[in-house]
């Protein structure tokens, strides 16, 4: 099947790192361990059958109560093959680090900063990992499921 070329090649190349693959509603997904994420991304970008040259999106999903709690989700697109793939790297709450993919796609720079800002995942090797949407001095990471929706922060006083 043409569509699953990516997943097949990925599972062949990294048998230890790929935890599972699936296809749902036409979206290819590979779940991987976080240790080799940069190698996997480099492979996806450079392999002539894959050539995922666009890093479209990077985000984190918080599955509160599950271990590992966080998933870093990468959406990649290959212009040459007109194909998409989703990578999900598992990150546990006790060790919130993962390798940065900025050396692979420079586009990851801001997306990783945002993920750090919103979820507190630390991207190792990121050139400039600091808050992007919120301000310095904001406490906590608001998109975590255990962060209250209406919690107020000290920046502008008790009225707000």
């Amino acid at each position, binding site marked *: 099947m043409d569509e699953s070329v990516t997943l097949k090649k990925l599972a062949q190349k990294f048998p230890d790192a790929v935890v599972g693959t699936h296809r749902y509603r036409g979206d290819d997904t590979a779940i991987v361990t976080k240790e080799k994420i940069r190698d996997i991304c480099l492979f996806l970008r450079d392999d002539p059958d894959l050539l995922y040259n666009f890093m479209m*999106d990077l985000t984190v999903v918080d599955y509160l109560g599950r271990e590992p709690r966080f998933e870093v*989700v990468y959406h990649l697109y290959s212009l040459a093959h007109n194909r998409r793939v989703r990578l999900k790297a598992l990150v546990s709450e006790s060790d919130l680090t993962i390798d940065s993919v900025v050396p692979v796609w420079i586009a990851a720079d801001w997306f990783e900063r945002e993920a750090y800002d919103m979820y507190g995942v630390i991207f190792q090797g990121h050139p400039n990992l600091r808050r992007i949407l919120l301000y310095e001095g904001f406490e906590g990471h608001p998109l975590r*499921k255990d962060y209250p*929706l209406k919690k107020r922060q000290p920046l502008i006083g008790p009225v707000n």
Partner: protein
Amino acid sequence: MAEIAKDLHTEHMVINMGPSHPVTHGTVKFLVTLEGETIVDLDVEIGYLHRGFEKMCENSTWQQVMPYTDRLNYVSPLINNTGYALAVEKLLGIDVPERCKYLRVIACELSRLADHLTNVAAAGLELGAFTAFLYFVEARELVWDLIESLCGARVTVNYVRIGGLKNDLPERFEEKVRDVFREVRRLWKDVDKLLTKNRIFIDRMRGVGAISAEEAIAYGFTGPCLRACGVPYDVRKAQPYLVYDRMDFEVPIGETGDNFDKYLVRMEEMQQSMRIVEQALAQMPDGPINVRMPQVRMEPKEKIYTRIDSLIYHFKTVIEGIKPPPGEVYQAVEGGNGELGFYLVSDGSGKPVKCRVRPPCFALTAAMPRLVKGRLLADIVPTFDMINMIGGECDR
């Protein structure tokens, strides 16, 4: 001259441009390090319009997310509506009726037209071409009149529903489209004459903010800014959704990726959008506009008032929300600025676990330092205009 400069004590000057500055559209701060007028370094600070979109979505039912999507890219809200609805429909595994698809295409293209009109108008204004602004704002008013007659609102429309649309076309819509497009084309020609061969405009735009195709891809550029570099990537062509595969339209591309090419690409896309609307109106079949699934799309009001099963479905979907099966999808559409992707995660309940938007201008704004470093301070203005950073989309 060099001799004198050697003995002078000089140091770089760091200035704040924004966050409240006419060019920064109110929501972004540039920390510019200058040597004379040359930009040595630029740090972009965003987040001044962070409104907690994702957190709000996670606390709303699937249908309640729709008004929030309006306010993402408020210059082209209908495309955001459509993108979200398509993503949820993909998650549900349903297909909408033919007429609905055509109507959505019409809505999207009207919105894209308004988006590009606004962009060029604002760019003209900020480069001193006030007449172009007035002309295109008037053209946008005309397009908004159409949108208003279709949806009932001018800016934040909330027109698309999961599994359908709010309403069908109003009466005499084709006639109105014909009249409006005639006028918009006339204004387009006027602005084309005012700007495209205008020496001042060209001097400010040509060669500024140029980027090669490889670099643009590495930065994650999409939309008009990528096409200006000569890469013909358009989601409407690459992965057609709705009925774009039946439409005959061109994808304009540029050569150098500079601001002038971005401007030309946008100008041409307006013409293509108008073509698509006309074709869609001509091809559109009759028929229903909503899926007949009461657990997804509310039934007509008469039925809800008179039939008990319709009432129960209505109650369940309003109180609990529609319930897509557990899973996750990514659906991309071509937004005003590029690939607008929705990544949704469902756990089978009435509220999304995750409702992520891939904002096209986020990646574009991230490349601002690359685009203007080494150029003059004044070059920030046209470059930032042509990036068309929309606060609601970039900061969410």
